[in-house]
């Protein structure tokens, strides 16, 4: 039904960055960022290892509960993040994730949004900024995956 690109299928089938980060050495910090829930049908926990001196992401891993494009987006996200400076990583958008995968079906664009959100959460945690929680009470949820509202999707996608 979905017209997935070969790259989406390849990343879904053979992701290399799944899992958690346990090994750390001096001067490195491991942070996680989490979005979604089992209720929504998708969730992503992103793990980043950051070299504090250079502010560089030296490793990125994911744990994902979700559809094929959620898994492929997670893999793409971690690929894109490795070696990036934290400030550079902040600029990463869901569009870039989707482009990296050779595109996603329109109905599946939000799966890449999840990647961007997890990244935001991880970096906020790293910087000690409190994370706003998305309450599902605004009644206008577009995607049941996680509590993002239509205006927010607009802001992210367009």
């Amino acid at each position, binding site marked *: *039904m979905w017209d*997935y690109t070969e790259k989406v*299928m390849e990343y*879904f*089938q053979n*992701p290399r960055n*799944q*899992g958690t980060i346990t090994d750390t050495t001096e001067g490195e910090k491991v942070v996680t960022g*989490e979005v979604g*829930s*089992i*209720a929504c*049908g*998708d*969730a*992503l*926990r992103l793990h980043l290892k950051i070299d504090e001196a250079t502010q560089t992401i030296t490793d990125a891993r*994911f*744990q*994902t*509960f*979700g*559809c*094929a494009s*959620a*898994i492929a987006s997670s893999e793409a996200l971690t690929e894109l993040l490795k070696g990036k400076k934290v400030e550079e990583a902040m600029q990463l958008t869901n569009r870039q994730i989707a482009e990296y995968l050779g595109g996603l079906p329109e*109905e599946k664009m939000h799966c890449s949004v999840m990647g961007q959100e997890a990244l935001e959460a991880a970096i906020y945690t790293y910087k000690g900024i409190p994370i706003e929680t998305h309450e599902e009470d605004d009644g206008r949820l577009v*995607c*049941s995956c996680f509590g993002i509202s239509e205006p927010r999707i607009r802001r992210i996608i367009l």
Partner: protein
Amino acid sequence: MKDCIYLDNNATTQVDPAVIEAMLPYLTTYFGNPSSMHTFGGQVGRAVKQARLQVASLLGAEDSEIVFTSCGTEGDNAAIRAALTAQPNKRHIITTVVEHPAVLNLCKRLEKEGYSVTYLSVDDQGLIDLHELEAALTGNTAVVSVMYANNETGVIFPIEEIGRIVKEKGAIFHVDAVQAVGKVPLNMKTSTIDMLTLSGHKIHAPKGIGALYVRRGVRFRPFMIGGHQERGRRGGTENVPGIVALGKAAELAEAHLAEIEQEKRLRDRLEKGILSRIPNTVVNGHPTKRLPNTTNIGFKYIEGEAILLSLNQFGICASSGSACTSGSLEPSHVLRALGLPYSVLHGSIRFSLSRYTTEAEIDRVLEVMPQVVERLRAMSPFNSD
């Protein structure tokens, strides 16, 4: 397709080669319009008549009670609209929350048109409460439309019990039997059903043909209005090849009913095999009141689409939710109605067998399934929970 293990027969089935053989002459040589004077020697009319008898026989009905339609959706629309048009003073409809969109979305439209609709709820096994039905029925109820068996879970409703309650109140009783026909024996002669929908492509006939059973004496008004075809009950030039195909498919389905236990045995083998090999799996829907060919299994902590795509890599076709709603990202309305926990809701897969399913195919699925689930669970953040 030869190499594909096809376990999505509730979505659609392979056309039986004997069905194609039966219909081909009506695609080629005998292409005439059955309503035309020149009759190709009466061949076309006779073929349509025979097909009507074959379908009637499968249902234990009279041939005059069979109206050919283009699909199950048309049958459902035609039956419910007919019941309403024939009883203009009654403005209430009863159905269930787990019906197919052909009934549910029609009912939503009918609410906009000014009808009131009661949607009966189901319990965690997918069954309705007959007291709720009884309480909802009034003299204003024009039609009760309840599916024989659910397309997603295979759960079978107690149709005759429901029918007795419905008939006491004088409402018309419509049954969407698209999933039941050919899987459970039906006999309209001893039934309380007034109208019954079936669809060809679910019983190894091609897509584009279906039938509606209309009990003799039940007031009917055509939904598809046009010429006098189907004794004035369905306008439009008859789909002769489709009708002949449906007739043959009905004959084959009737014969297959004698061997349906074999299909059930394979379904049970699959179901038990998965439950025993893979932890955190559950069967959705009532354990025994179910179609012999269907099992809907929840694989906790992983997501349905990911499971399906992985299975596809191994040449196995199954589905999550119904084909109809798989375009949407919402979890199935049927599974939600059962009140399943979220961990199950998003990771449920329907396997639906047919008479073509072999033991070797089932065993192959049992071999592949554990790896597929394990791989996805290893990725899931909920796995260790």
